[in-house]
């Protein structure tokens, strides 16, 4: 595993695009974490003197203000933080569920595997938005449940990938060798299977984060996600889209932020996939 990791890091270093994406992404995350302290405005403070103001360096509203005079710089950064937090937590949930489900199906094989994969097939044949809409409707618009429900639908492809890997690993010679030399199942799993699963899992976890951020902003855009007064990038974009013709920056600032963030995450994930030499599931 150590050798695999070193190789991957070396290959990643050789890819300027992926590194560039990583730097831009880190800068954005850093800005989202410390940015609100750089600016005198708060998320909810209303500045009636500057309503729907243009972005400018003349006053404290660097990215302008929205229809209620709230500062867009601070709101966009706070929204980025919310989107990132949801992306990370929900990805962790889908990672956990997906790895366990996929590993069980892959090892069990045979009939169990068949049934478990059929369930995934049925679930992934549906627009997942149905389920999340139902969950938000049933449980109310609770932010923690939002994490859970998004994470709960994101695990399908992770499970599929882990299962495929587990199936192929099960038949590898080094596993046979380990079995032949008398290693117990627990030791084989810990020493041989999990380290070899790790590469693809890391890669797909990285690619899951932007998907989940996208999904969350989609829900927030529909009014099902994060509620006022806090906002995610999706809520801000929804606000901006309705003011597009009179005050385009209300849309352009959060929209540009989301677009750049998703682009960097995807480029970095792709670079990581090439570095680990994982094949597309």
């Amino acid at each position, binding site marked *: 595993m150590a050798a695999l990791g070193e190789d991957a890091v070396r290959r990643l270093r050789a890819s300027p695009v992926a590194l560039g994406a990583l730097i831009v992404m880190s800068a954005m995350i850093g800005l989202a974490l410390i940015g609100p302290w750089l600016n005198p405005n708060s998320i909810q403070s209303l500045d009636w003197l500057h309503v729907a103001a243009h972005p400018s360096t003349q006053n404290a509203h660097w990215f302008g203000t929205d229809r209620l005079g709230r500062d867009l710089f601070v709101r966009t950064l706070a929204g980025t933080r919310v989107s990132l937090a949801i992306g990370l937590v929900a990805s962790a949930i889908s990672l956990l569920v997906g790895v366990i489900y996929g590993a069980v199906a892959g090892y069990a094989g045979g009939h169990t595997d068949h049934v478990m994969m059929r369930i995934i097939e049925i679930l992934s044949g549906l627009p997942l938005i*149905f389920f999340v809409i139902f969950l938000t409707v049933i449980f109310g618009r609770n932010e923690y449940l939002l994490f859970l429900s998004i994470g709960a639908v994101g695990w399908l492809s992770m499970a599929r990938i882990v299962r495929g890997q587990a199936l192929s690993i099960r038949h590898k010679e080094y596993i046979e060798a380990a079995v032949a030399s008398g290693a117990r199942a627990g030791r084989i799993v810990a020493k041989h299977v999990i380290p070899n699963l790790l590469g693809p899992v890391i890669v797909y976890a990285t690619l899951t984060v932007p998907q989940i951020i996208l999904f969350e902003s989609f829900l927030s855009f529909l009014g099902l996600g994060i509620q006022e007064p806090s906002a995610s990038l999706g809520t801000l*974009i929804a606000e901006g889209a309705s003011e597009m013709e009179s005050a*385009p920056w209300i849309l352009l600032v959060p929209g540009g932020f989301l677009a750049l963030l998703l682009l960097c995450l995807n480029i970095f994930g*792709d670079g990581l996939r090439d570095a680990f030499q994982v094949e597309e599931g």
Partner: protein
Amino acid sequence: MFRYFLTRLASAIPTLFIIITATFFLMRAAPGGPFDQEQTLSPEIMANMQAAYGLDQPIWKQYGRYIASLAHGDFGPSFKYKDFTVTELIAQGFPVTLELGVIAMVLALIVGIPLGTFAALHHNSAADYAAMSAALVGIAIPSFVVLPFLGLLFGVYLHWLPVSGWEPRSLSHLALPIIALALPPLAYIARLTRGSMLEVLRSHYIRTAFAKGLPLRTVILRHALRPALTPVASYLVPAVASIMTGSLVVESIAGLPGIGRFLVQGALNRDYTLVLGMVIIYSALLIGMGLLVDLLYAWLDPRVRVR
């Protein structure tokens, strides 16, 4: 092959039935009811309304009645849009959504496949990198960001196309929503085509075809394209799902009178029958697409036909 298709068709019906049942009981498990937002109703009127829609009956009886009416092709009355049946509501909006979705899908295919093939033929060239970077942008940026951006550019600044609104048989009103919906699947199809085309181009029979002296055009169109399209075929079902979910927001941003708005609104309003109707339409479309893909597989890859 035909037998295989029939078994798949037969397994689609229980799947749809399970989806309907799960949706029915999930909706009913949600707190609140369809008449909560009306002005305070006296208990008598409330009871009368409940009775009029059969909501006073035990849930199992309601479920039985709903399934029975479905079997007659009746989706039931809408709870929120008074005087409308769900069938009428869907019949009004569905043509718009269908037109939008079908054109977006066709656009994604007729641009995505050539783009991917082109990138594969110019592997590791500047053109390849440019095409794949563009595809990455298309995948990364969601349609609800793309559409307002396009609206700003082509509508507000350039005045080429209307920003929103709808007129019957007017393609200019549909142009921007179609592009926004088509971009993510287009980008994905281009990437898939490029990947599998690269693999196919390395195979022996393609080398043979070139060695025979066939022109590039013939090799690609007659020999390489069909096997290279198998991953694209398996992506068609997720692509339809992506266009469907995309249309939920795209229609509302562009102000199109499709059925997209009914799903979220219906769920929030507890319009049980409307939500069920929407779920049935969407699931049936997806399942139908899955069957179509099975047939397509057999055409693309003759080995499948033997099974």
